[in-house]
């Protein structure tokens, strides 16, 4: 019996198993356990949640490996961790630790101004952020096995996530209506490989699972992006910056499953306490926006 590990099917397949679920940012083993008990399908092990990274300023890097290991020991669900854009050595370190997924993330300060990590070179799968279809297909071409729209992390504001998800889906619908000879120009316009553009035009969907991240802070936010067409959600600061993290986490899990059932969303939204405060996008100067990182 030939056995092959870390194949494209296993990399992409883990993301398929996470569908319809909530991936939560955690900074301690206790938070990881709380997330698991609340029904998270995976956790993102971090030193600081994006809202605190934003507040702290300076250079944001990969988390201390001891924090990641402590979180891996605390839960049985998959553990993800973030590497800086283009920082393939941080990714090598995370692979050596044995994390289940690496997020090449705009939330950290980019390490390379033109190149992302060659993700085909790794055995561990990668999730990457995107704002539009071209960016998504460039990341998939580099080997990303899962995508997420970026939103604007650490704001508690869903507006960017909605804009980006609508953009990605609208661009896919546009491709679907094209003649085959128009796809060459479309590929050029998107800055994406023709083969992937052709595949999206034929299937009407990305070749990998697509989640939404950046700004989800209530059950209704999660249900909104699910109804728009997300396959699952990342919740960063939205849980542990809320008044009652355990209840908020569980309510977002329920709303992600029953995203098209307003009565159930109403039921799980009752008495959750205050969500994270949030920031209007206009209050964030352009140079402090995270979503524009990545090329």
């Amino acid at each position: 019996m030939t056995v092959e590990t870390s194949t494209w099917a296993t990399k992409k397949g883990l993301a398929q198993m996470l569908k319809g679920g909530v991936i939560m940012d955690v900074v301690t083993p206790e938070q990881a356990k709380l997330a698991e008990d609340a029904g998270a399908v995976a956790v993102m092990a971090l030193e600081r949640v994006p809202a605190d990274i934003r507040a702290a300023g300076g250079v944001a890097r990969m988390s201390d490996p001891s924090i990641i290991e402590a979180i891996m020991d605390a839960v049985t669900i998959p553990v993800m961790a973030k590497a800086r854009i283009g920082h393939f050595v941080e990714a090598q370190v995370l692979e050596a630790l044995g994390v289940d997924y690496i997020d090449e993330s705009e939330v950290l300060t980019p390490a390379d101004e033109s190149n992302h990590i060659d993700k085909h070179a790794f055995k561990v799968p990668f999730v990457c952020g995107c704002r539009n279809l071209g960016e998504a297909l460039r990341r998939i071409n580099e080997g990303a096995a899962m995508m997420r729209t970026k939103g604007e992390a650490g704001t508690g504001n869903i507006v960017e996530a909605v804009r980006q998800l609508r953009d990605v889906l609208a661009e896919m619908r546009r491709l679907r209506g094209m003649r085959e000879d128009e796809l060459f120009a479309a590929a050029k316009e998107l800055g994406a490989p023709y083969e992937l553009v052709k595949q999206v035009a034929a299937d009407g969907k990305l070749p990998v699972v697509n989640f939404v991240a950046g700004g989800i802070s209530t059950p209704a936010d999660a249900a909104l992006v699910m109804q728009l067409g997300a396959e699952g959600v990342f919740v960063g600061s939205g849980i542990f910056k809320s008044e009652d993290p355990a209840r908020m986490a569980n309510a977002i899990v329920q709303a992600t499953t029953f995203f098209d059932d307003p009565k159930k969303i109403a039921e799980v939204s009752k008495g959750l306490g205050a969500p994270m405060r949030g920031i209007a996008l206009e209050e964030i100067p352009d140079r402090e926006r995270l979503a524009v990182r990545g090329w």
Partner: protein
Amino acid sequence: MRIGVLALQGAFREHLDTLHAIGVEGVRVREPADLDGVSGLILPGGESTTMRQLIERWGLRQPILELAERGAPIFGTCAGMILLAREIAGDEPPTLPVLDVTVERNAFGRQLDSFEAEVPVPILGDRPVHAVFIRAPIIERTSPEVDVLARLDDGRIVAVRERNILATAFHPELAGETRFHRLMATMAAEHDDPGEGSGRRPHPTRRGRPAR
């Protein structure tokens, strides 16, 4: 005939697509009323801890146990197999203990140890199953009532059947494999219309009232 697919979380779309490919109507099951009129149920891959929590929260445990007790086929893949197991190594509580086995979660290690292999499954014919194992569980112990359907080269058990309960540690639905779903559809058809002399059998491992 309609087959339900538990659609709380995980790769349920892939199972619905596989059912569609073999011409069987699949329906999403998220709450007890969705089970009305189904001839069988598939528990997909996903995170078993998440699915267990949602099964309990929305009152699905009892109706699924009753469906199993009536003899309707239940097919669990990966996390679905964990949900069906009577025992889980490490003292985790069982969810729908209708399959008399002990499973070990994440038995091969972390995601880096996920793999694909050609696994012989004699009851499905000579052609092996292309099996995708993702952070997969393994079956450590089986009761005498349980038929072992497939093993890895090292002897570890990765597919079993106990009367109407079918379970695989791997994902046939990710590799375009339809034979498990066809087997399940055949079991469902037999359950719906047992035919002369076959008789309805009680569930072999259920003793008294199902556990709450």
